[in-house]
């Protein structure tokens, strides 16, 4: 995990935090040329995956109930937006869990079982997650056609009940990109499993 020690004065006390620092909105794609092994067997970089209208990166894994809950929407969203010129990739950065369900073989099995229609790459030493300031799974980042970060956060506002979703954050961000508009809700939060950095 990317560690940031921040000291904030609060009522004359020192507050220390150990939290990830998410990539700032407007940033360019970090480590765009870093090659990662996709479950299809090819070495791919984010540059290779980015589409004409942008890129969706989801930090994910095989071992998190929040991923289990949202995963059906990975496939739906990829199927809806891949044809519209977005690149779509799930990234597994759980370096410390390679022997606990997040190995490359496990990733291949997962992609097959869940019918992934998008790339699922191995971030072997969590380099990409650190560069993004990703902290949890799932943790979504969207880059527009100019390859600038326009959305980060959750897929929507209801992991457990797709039928009760009230805010489709990711879909709304992608629609805004396609319409050439600013993303209305550009940063959201959701509960998720910590990324298992090998540190």
């Amino acid at each position: 995990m990317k560690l940031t020690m921040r000291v904030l004065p609060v009522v004359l006390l020192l507050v220390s935090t150990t939290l990830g620092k998410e990539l700032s909105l407007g940033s360019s794609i970090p480590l765009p040329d870093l090659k990662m092994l996709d479950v299809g067997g090819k070495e791919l970089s984010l540059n290779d995956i980015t589409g004409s209208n942008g890129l969706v990166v989801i930090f994910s894994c095989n071992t998190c109930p929040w991923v289990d809950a949202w995963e059906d929407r990975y496939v739906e969203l990829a199927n809806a937006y891949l044809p519209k010129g977005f690149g779509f990739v799930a990234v597994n950065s759980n370096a410390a869990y390679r022997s606990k369900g997040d190995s490359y073989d496990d990733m291949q099995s997962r992609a097959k079982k869940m019918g992934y229609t998008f790339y699922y790459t191995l971030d072997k030493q969590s380099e990409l997650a650190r560069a993004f300031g990703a902290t949890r799974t799932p943790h979504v980042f969207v880059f527009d056609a100019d390859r600038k970060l326009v959305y980060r956060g959750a897929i929507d506002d209801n992991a457990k009940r797709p039928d009760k979703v009230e805010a489709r954050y990711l879909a709304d961000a992608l629609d805004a990109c396609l319409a050439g508009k600013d993303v209305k809700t550009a940063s959201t939060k959701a509960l998720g499993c910590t990324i298992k950095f090998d540190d």
Partner: protein
Amino acid sequence: MLESFSPLIFRSGLVAAVLLTIGLSSCGPSPEPVSLKRATAADIIQQVSEYKGREAVLVNFWATWCAPCVQEFPMIVELGRRYRDEGLKIYFVSVDWLEQSDRVRTFLEQQGVEGLSFIKDEKDNPFIDGIARDWTGAVPFTIVYAKRSGAAMELWEGKAHRERFENAIEMALEN
């Protein structure tokens, strides 16, 4: 005379010992049953604020399905007992789905947690920001509030070593 009374004295002593044992065990503090309350971030902040000026408070956000949470859980319970008399209050806040309340309650009982605990009853985004703007949403998440000021002194995501908990607790007790 003495010999004829000896069995009686022995029996009386035995009865007294048994009664004393029963009496002592029933006089000791009996475990307080787990009370699992649905809560928003505002409910939790309100609960914490009631200890301002009296006790330091550690709040741990966890889930039954979260392996790192479950791994560090017994240590947190033990630290709660160890620092209780020095003025530390610990609250556990489950972020399991609400329909898993029974599973959460059972886990808390198995871990020897007593009294009030919470389970999240609010959408993620307002809940996370309502607890701490710097929390990104990853669990486990721990936040420690100072005894005198009630201010948040330290917060971290992910499983932590005992030393980190102890340092945060001792700093919170001193401030």
